[in-house]
């Protein structure tokens, strides 16, 4: 069974700009991790300057070439010898301009490491399976490096799967490429090495492999962080998820009988999403609640420092589940008062094996505080500041800072974002004064109304 896809390869523009042959890739090693619901690729490239003058710009193209990659989540370029992150900018979709920290003299080498993650790439094959089948995913990729430069020595490896099968995709490809035969070494599927490849080598390949885990995706995540105005050492976090499973769909209706018979609920290795795992690491979620649009979901529990959330029903491919998770944490772990308040907060919650399409990070600063600055280790789409009225907000309401991110994945919970804001004691007492003033006016007017004689005789 072969997949035949039609597409138009439109790279003329990119090739014109990039192929100026000033570099050569001496060694190009790609390793691709397929253990999760998204794809993690690490490319280590040893580049050599073959120009006659020093240069410090290298162009990197994502190994795609036939629009197989859905969306790129995180792109990182690192100098391999001293792990310095290199400044990169995306000059066009999937083409990055790497500005090396120092110029490389002619005939010198430097080793670069590129990390990137892509989501919305894997498709279940077949798309509809029955409960007791094993889910298979098709990963489409370019078998060769898609670099604007020539490559001397190239190898490719896949990890994170137990059983796989290569499929040839009959799509446009570069002619006269060497034949790469797969081999298995210590749970890794390896190709190569191949030698002397031309720029923009392209040979689409499909890898069909067993992946009996759900492909969890949050279409939208609204992560709101409520910062208190008073000295109380609590921060409330509420997250609203719109969850879906991108994996295989059921071939017919959901049969509870088959589900019970197979005891799939108690196993982790099934492609239906029946549990969400949240490793807590050194965190303590106080007063957590797990609700959805019809009320409380009582199926959440703490097991071995993990919070397990069980949706009301198992999610098969294409099924959705929206829910809200909220809890309190100690504020002192996140907030520091310098001249202004500095908040250091994890970008994401630590839900395991999930990708996010849109993440809206919402900070609710105390009323009449002043938002100063926001900094993030990864780029975001947009940031906006507005007000939202909440409990006992007597003037404009909480200052709400919304940061919109796109295409994130679970491991980014290790990253922290920083937010600075200014909130003075005077603002605080002013608010309290206002509230008590209103209460006072209310009571006084009640008293005054009592003095009015409404007696009818």
């Amino acid at each position, binding site marked *: 069974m072969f997949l035949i896809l039609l597409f138009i390869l439109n790279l003329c523009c990119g090739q014109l700009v990039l192929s100026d042959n000033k570099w050569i890739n001496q060694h190009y090693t790609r390793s691709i991790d397929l253990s999760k619901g998204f794809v993690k690729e690490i490319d280590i490239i040893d580049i050599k300057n073959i120009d006659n003058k020093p240069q410090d710009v290298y162009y990197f193209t994502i190994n795609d070439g036939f629009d197989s990659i859905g969306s790129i989540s995180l792109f990182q370029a690192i100098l391999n010898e001293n792990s310095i992150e290199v400044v990169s900018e995306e000059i066009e979709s999937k083409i990055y301009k790497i500005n090396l920290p120092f110029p490389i003299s002619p005939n010198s080498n430097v080793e670069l490491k590129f990390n990137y993650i892509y989501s919305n790439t894997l498709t279940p094959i077949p798309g509809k399976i029955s409960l007791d089948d094993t889910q298979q995913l098709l990963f489409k990729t370019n078998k060769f490096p898609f670099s604007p430069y020539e490559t001397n020595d190239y190898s490719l490896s896949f990890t994170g799967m137990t059983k796989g099968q290569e499929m040839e995709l009959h799509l446009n490809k570069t002619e006269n490429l060497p034949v790469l035969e797969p081999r298995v070494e210590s749970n890794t599927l390896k190709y190569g090495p191949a030698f002397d490849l031309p720029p923009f080598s392209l040979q689409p390949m499909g890898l069909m492999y067993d992946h009996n885990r759900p492909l969890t995706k949050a279409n939208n995540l609204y992560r709101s962080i409520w910062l208190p105005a008073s000295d109380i050492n609590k921060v409330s976090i509420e997250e609203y998820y719109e969850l879906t499973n991108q994996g295989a769909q059921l071939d*017919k*209706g*959901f*049969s*509870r*009988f088959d589900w*019970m018979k197979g005891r799939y609920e108690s196993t982790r290795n099934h492609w239906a999403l029946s549990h969400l795992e949240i490793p807590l690491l050194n965190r303590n979620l106080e007063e957590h609640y797990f609700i*959805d*649009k*019809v*009320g*409380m*979901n*009582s199926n959440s529990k703490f097991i071995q420092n993990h919070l397990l959330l069980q949706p*009301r*029903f198992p999610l098969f491919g*294409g*099924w*959705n*589940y*929206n829910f809200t998770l909220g809890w309190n944490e100690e504020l002192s772990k996140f907030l520091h008062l310098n001249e202004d308040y500095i908040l250091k907060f994890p970008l994401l919650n630590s839900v395991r094996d999930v990708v996010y399409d849109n993440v809206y990070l919402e900070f609710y600063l105390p009323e009449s505080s002043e938002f100063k600055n926001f900094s993030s280790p990864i780029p975001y789409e947009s940031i906006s500041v507005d007000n939202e*009225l*909440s*409990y*006992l*907000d*007597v003037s404009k309401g909480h200052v709400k800072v919304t940061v919109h991110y796109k295409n994130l994945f679970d491991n980014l919970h290790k990253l922290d974002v920083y937010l600075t804001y200014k909130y003075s004691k005077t603002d605080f007492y002013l608010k309290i004064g206002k509230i008590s003033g209103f209460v006072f006016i209310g009571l006084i007017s009640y008293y005054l109304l009592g003095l009015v004689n409404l007696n*009818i005789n």
Partner: protein
Amino acid sequence: MSNVNQLTIYGVDIQLIRTLLKIIIFISIAGAAISSRLFSVIRFEAIIHEFDPWFNFRATKYLVTHSYYEFLNWFDDRTWYPLGRVTGGTLYPGLMVTSGAIWHILKNYFKLPVDIRNICVLLAPAFSGLTAIFTYFLTKEMKDSSAGLLAAIFMGIAPGYISRSVAGSYDNEAIAITLLMATFYFWIKSMKIGSVFYATITALCYFYMVSAWGGYVFITNLIPLHVFVLLLMGRYNPKLYTAYTTWYALGTLASMQIPFVGFLPIRSNDHMAALGVFGLLQLVAFGDYVKSKVPNKQFKSFLIVSVVFVFGSGIAALFGLTAMGWIAPWTGRFYSLWDTNYAKIHIPIIASVSEHQPTAWPAFFFDTSMLIWLFPAGIYLCFQDLKDEHVFVIIYSVLCSYFAGVMVRLMLTLTPVICVSGAIALSKLFDVYLNIKDAFHGDNISISKVISKLTVLLSFGFYLFYFVLHCTWVTSNAYSSPSVVLASRNPDGSQNLIDDYREAYYWLRMNTPEDAKVMAWWDYGYQIGGMADRTTLVDNNTWNNTHIATVGKAMASPENVSYEILKKHDVDYVLVIFGGLLGYSGDDINKFLWMVRIAEGIWPDEIKERDFFTDRGEYKMDKDASETMKNSLMYKLCYWRFSELFGGRDGVDRVRNQQIPINAVPELNVVEEAFTSENWIVRIYKVKDLDNVGRDLYDATKFENKKSGKRNRIVKRPKIDLRE
């Protein structure tokens, strides 16, 4: 200048202390009333209960997200598909408007943006506190403030009222009982002092009541009856005239402003008594005037002639207007009040509701505990006094005792009067026995007197204590279950929540197209609308009997007949409730006979109740089940693949204690299973589309089964020995 009456304790005026104590008592009563209604919130969560409240909740959400006029003009195309419902014109908006107003006030004036759901959940307990206070005032008018306080506490915790006002039972009754008490209190007050002001307040309360609950008809009839009886007793006075005419004129005009009520107050028979008494009162006032002007003897003959004439012409007019169609005849629910068999014969849909069944005797004790035997004593004491207001209590109690016997849900209107008269009796008793002055009267203390007093007081103290225990126990065990979530106990005693309803409804909400039509029995219509947010065919607003019968017919017919109905109504999903696995008795198989009966009412040729019983007349699901039963869609949907759960043996239906044979598994051709909840309580089936190669769905299913059979054979490969 020292006032002789002004007693002081430690220099504090005793009146002040009394007021202070009273306020503290009120706060405690309200606290007790509210907190005993919170069992369900604490045990489960702040959730809307049962069925009707889900509609009220949905309507409230509509109100707070739209303008008031949009709400009144709300045409709901998501229910009664394809007919729709003129929701704005067929509901009592009082409840929604109340919680909407509270929501707006809290949000805009108090800066408390409380979730509308929480307001809806806690509205009933909050109003129950007010009810207790109005009961105090009403009883105070009957006897004195100590009786009032007793009545207030009784009202606060009596299970008969709690059953309809726990947190989450967001129903019309939640505020209606408060308004009932308020209207009665102001009526008594205005009647006593003949005040236009109080009569106007009565009319306003009445208007609020009309806007909130269909049971306002009770007031519409009770107050005229009170006046009528007073007239018969010869107790006419100008005060009565002032109070009644003011109330009637203003109240009727006001009540006509509610779209659902409209011109009913002048056209429906339910309201004619009030109009008649209004007319009668004019005549009596006129007669009173004549009486004061002419001698006694002439007046008598005048009276007899005019009474006969008026009575005759009144009856004639009533019959005439009804016959001409100017006045609507009485409604079925009204008839079933007088003839308990009426509904069973004529309107099965009313009879099928459990709360319209006659009350069982133990329910009276269950719902009111010791008050049920204090109640007659209180009424007796009212006879002893027999002032105008006591007549009111007597009439109220007689009428409501009857009604409560006819319909379980009318226990609710009986409870207030039980509380009032129970309190009158008890406070009278306490007046006598708590008076310790006369025990110490004279030189020697009478031992026997002290002992008798102590015995009575201690035993009633015990009764009161027991009353509180009973009420709390009943509230906690019987009335605090949301019925959407079921609770059971694990073997280790911990609580296990059975949340199948919400599981399935949420599945519908998340995983079906937004315009999917769901067919289910009408009981679940409101819940599907509220929780699953999907279009339903029928719901708890049972306005169209034929439509309900259609659904009943679809459930009771064989697949091919049902399929035609399903397709004609664009049904995408069919939902049934099945309790057989868990032993949940309120399931669709137990309601099935009502579906059959209602369908039979419309299609007596096609659906026959008799066919669903075995030859011996038993209602069976096991191997003896009749063919009609086994072929009905409902049977198939409920037992589809059920027996397979039992590992080759016959399945056991734990509700009906019957064996479902493994070898006669129902076959489904026109629908396919889409979802079954964790404990199998809710089962959802997807209606198959017409076959795309034009086959009969039966053939198509047969073909599919054959195909899957072939696949099974492939799976059964011979075992290959391991080759080393």
